[in-house]
């Protein structure tokens, strides 16, 4: 590995650490910056919401006091906060006292990760190929007619698309389930029935995220491809007599993909924000729904835990994208 590559990875890793540091600090600071005793405020809100009559207020108060350690100086609190994080101690849930936040997060994470990974991969690859085709002179009218549709899909927030999809597929046509991760009566086992059931429930949320994103990738790819196709090396490749197929993929798409991957890194945050809301609309058992239920029940440690998890997961994903980048762009590898 050359020195440039090492310094590239070091820089990227530094950015990963910085994002995690900012996220943790924001989580730590905001409740403390606001006026009033955060414990009292939290308890008052919890009681006002009236959702959890079964909660033992004393136990909750003690948990809060122990967690915050508000009688200590700010710096000591901050150090404690980090120490708890490294022990994966994110506090307990009040709605399901005394289940830990970590358990809840680990239960929800695979659902969100699966949904987001599949949807992003499909939307990104389909969108990129479609966008490249749109810029290619030999493409037929049928595909070009898609552009206005793609623009509308890009403009509309995709969790609103999700509501329309539920109405069409689950209410009017009744061919797909409207909500949930699998049938409520099913006991999860690793058999073909469970897998099919999970897939059937994932189909609509996936469709919502894919439809909402494919236009963004297609339009971005189209404008990149247009400028790449104007380059001299494309003319040269054609003059050499290379097949159109080869020019399209190896000379056109490969170069246009570089900025697509950069855009992927920048867009992941908003994709994730949208996916959280799609989960809420579908009541999908991932991090988004966990967050929603926690917000409704004022389950503060769970809210903080989910937020931290979202930020750290995204920073991790970005780091992976950064690791892939040198494979695409040999100029960094050198």
């Amino acid at each position: 590995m050359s020195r440039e590559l090492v310094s590239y990875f070091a820089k990227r890793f530094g950015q990963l650490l910085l994002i995690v540091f900012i996220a943790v600090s924001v989580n730590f600071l905001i409740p403390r910056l606001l006026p009033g005793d955060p414990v009292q405020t939290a308890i008052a809100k919890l009681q006002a919401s009236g959702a959890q009559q079964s909660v033992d207020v004393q136990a909750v108060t003690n948990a809060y006091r122990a967690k915050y350690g508000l009688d200590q100086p700010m710096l000591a609190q901050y150090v404690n906060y980090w120490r708890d994080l490294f022990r994966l101690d994110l506090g307990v849930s009040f709605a399901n006292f005394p289940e830990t936040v970590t358990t809840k997060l680990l239960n929800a994470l695979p659902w969100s990760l699966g949904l987001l990974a599949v949807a992003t991969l499909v939307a990104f690859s389909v969108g990129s190929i479609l966008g490249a085709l749109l810029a290619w002179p030999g493409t037929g009218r049928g595909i070009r007619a898609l552009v206005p549709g793609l623009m509308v899909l890009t403009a509309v927030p995709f969790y609103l698309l999700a509501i329309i999809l539920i109405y069409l597929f689950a209410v009017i046509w009744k061919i797909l389930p409207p909500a949930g991760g699998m049938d409520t009566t099913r006991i999860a086992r690793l058999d073909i029935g469970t897998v099919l059931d999970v897939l059937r429930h994932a189909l609509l949320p996936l469709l919502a995220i894919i439809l909402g994103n494919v236009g963004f990738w297609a339009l971005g790819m189209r404008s990149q491809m247009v400028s790449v196709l104007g380059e001299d090396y494309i003319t040269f490749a054609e003059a050499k007599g290379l097949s159109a197929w080869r020019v399209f993929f190896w000379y056109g798409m490969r170069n246009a993909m570089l900025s697509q991957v950069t855009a992927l890194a920048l867009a992941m945050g908003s994709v994730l924000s949208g996916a959280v809301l799609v989960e809420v609309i579908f009541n999908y058992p991932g991090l988004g729904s966990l967050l929603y239920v926690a917000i409704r029940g004022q389950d503060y440690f769970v809210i903080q835990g989910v937020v931290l998890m979202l930020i750290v997961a995204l920073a991790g994903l970005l780091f992976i994208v950064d690791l892939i980048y040198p494979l695409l762009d040999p100029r960094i590898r050198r």
Partner: protein
Amino acid sequence: MSAFAKLRRGLVERRISGTLILGLSILLLIVLISIIGPLFVDAHNATVGAVTPRRPPSAQYYLGTDSQGRDMLTLLIYGTPNTLKMGLIAGFIGVGLGLVFGLLAGNFGGIVDAVIRIVADALLTVPAIAILVIIAGNVDRMTTNVMALVVASLSWMFTTRTIRAQVLTIRERSYVEVARVNGEGALEILFREIMPNLLPFIVASFVGTVGSAILAVIGLEALGLGALEETTLGNTIYWSQQSAAVLRGYWWWWGPPIVVIALIFLGLFLTSVGFDRFANPKLSRR
């Protein structure tokens, strides 16, 4: 040259594209309806229990009523300006902050530049909703104005990046060099030579920022973190979700707000695409 002649020249040279006109007309239509609309409906019908609940659209209630007994058309007409207002306030503050940070970073360089750039890049990659949830969840009494401020706090990064990059290239242009040789001071160069050239980018950033601010506001409202006592488009969708309006087939409850929101975003999107062409004549030759 009169404004009309300018417009005509723009059209002839194909700088003002159909996209821009379409986008601006959609936005103008929505703004007009928000201004004139309240004259034709009774505000009382937007309060709980004012009309018969769960009526489909009819001659009496053009867009039906929700299950709390509110008239949907009245809700829409009073909700749209509130949603737009939040987007505009957040847009102004976000672009203002972004402009200041971008100018500072691009103009002074060094440690100021490094800090602003690193923080902006880091915040750009963080899912905004995660941080906004923490802030909004800790606000004592949410109003639409507070909501706009909350969203504005994360709306400045994109403008900062754009402005910084532009300042860096404009600084190297020969006319700035000439101004410097002529003895103009640093501030004079900033406001007389650099700022006028930033205008197209400021407008473009503003359109984009308003769009993402409205997106964030509606997202927070859909999570139930909005100003629930006030009428907004996002809150209408939140209440329809709370009453399972989709599964119960009350399409007139969630359908119209979705259409209005979609139109707002479509208008903003077309305006920004069209404006790119307007500000960047090279693009229109393609």
